[in-house]
């Protein structure tokens, strides 16, 4: 990757960084874990952008969630903090908020075909996240307490 390509990605990285900080504060992440949480959020925000565009949205979300949750569990082991401290602000970038809203909006406007497509997309993203987290629980086992 050349310098130009790296520079072209700087706005995305900046947005990912600011977004990760904002969500960490919104969810009241303890200050001592803020750098770790921002790191997980940053990876989670950027991961879907760098996965192959040809992949199904549910599968790419599954892979992104797997990476995010594995990193969160690794930080949890390293810092003795609950994994949720890193996982929740991280995984928020993957949740299908827009799809859910647009599906509901389409349904209310009687655009049923569009509503079904968007609902299925939301369901596949949700399942992708959930199974990504479950697999990460197995690959990088969570701590015994929280």
């Amino acid at each position: 990757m050349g310098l130009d390509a790296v520079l072209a990605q700087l706005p995305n990285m900046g947005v990912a960084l600011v977004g990760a900080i904002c969500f960490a504060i919104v969810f009241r992440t303890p200050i001592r874990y803020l750098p770790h949480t921002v790191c997980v959020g940053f990876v989670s925000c950027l991961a879907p952008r760098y996965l192959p565009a040809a992949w199904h949205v549910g599968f790419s979300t599954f892979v992104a969630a797997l990476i995010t949750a594995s990193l969160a569990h690794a930080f949890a082991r390293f810092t003795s903090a609950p994994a949720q401290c890193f996982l929740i602000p991280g995984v928020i970038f993957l949740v299908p908020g827009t799809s859910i809203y647009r599906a509901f909006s389409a349904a209310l406007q009687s655009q049923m075909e569009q509503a079904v497509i968007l609902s299925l997309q939301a369901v596949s993203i949700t399942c992708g996240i959930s199974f990504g987290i479950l697999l990460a629980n197995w690959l990088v086992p969570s701590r015994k307490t929280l």
Partner: protein
Amino acid sequence: MRVFLALLRETSRHLIECGCSSNRVEQLMMRLGDSWGFEVEALAIPTGVWISVRRGGENLVELTRVRDWKVDLDRLARLNELIEHFHGHRISMEEAQQRLEAAASAEPPYDKIATLLAGAGTSPILIYTYGGPAIEAMLALPLGIVVQILQKYVFVGENRRYLGDFLSAAFVAAYACVAKQIFPEVDVPRLAVGGIVVLVPGLVMVNAVHEVAQKNLVSGAAKLLEAMVITASLGMGVLFVLGVFYKWA
């Protein structure tokens, strides 16, 4: 035994209140029971926890009701530390009770202004990630601030939750329609979605599926229902305003 049960009851309530999953709460209660020589069974759902503690021939059962819940990771981390100490017998039951009260009333790690700005900052970021122009991202910042104020300080309390979602969504849609009149290049649905997406219960939905996947069917179903009601409140708020706007426009 009664002191232990009271401690478990309070701990489980605080855990559910700050966003811990039902499955985790049940596991923790049983682990604490094992550690202190009690046979503990727990059933946690988003609105309450039943705990039974047994030793010898004596059996006590208690229920704690949970009326409010939100994600509070600072409180969760404090509770985690307390549970680890209590599990390892590094603190007594009385000390654990005191520390539990202290954890519940601890000051949040960030002040109100930082939290408001952070919450508001999420809207422009989401607009940018949807491919919105700079003007839309800039318009989303005050929108985010107002939505945060409405959600955190105006519509507070268990009875106002869904009303707050409905009115916040209506406000976001009205703001987007007015912005369209002033700046014609603004995309109303994108600005509305950007403003509202922080309220959409995506995380609740993910937690619900996660609970179901771990065979916590009651908790999963309850969270799915909550997600549906919130989505309906938001959708009705936006569509109410957009319906009026498109009729006039």
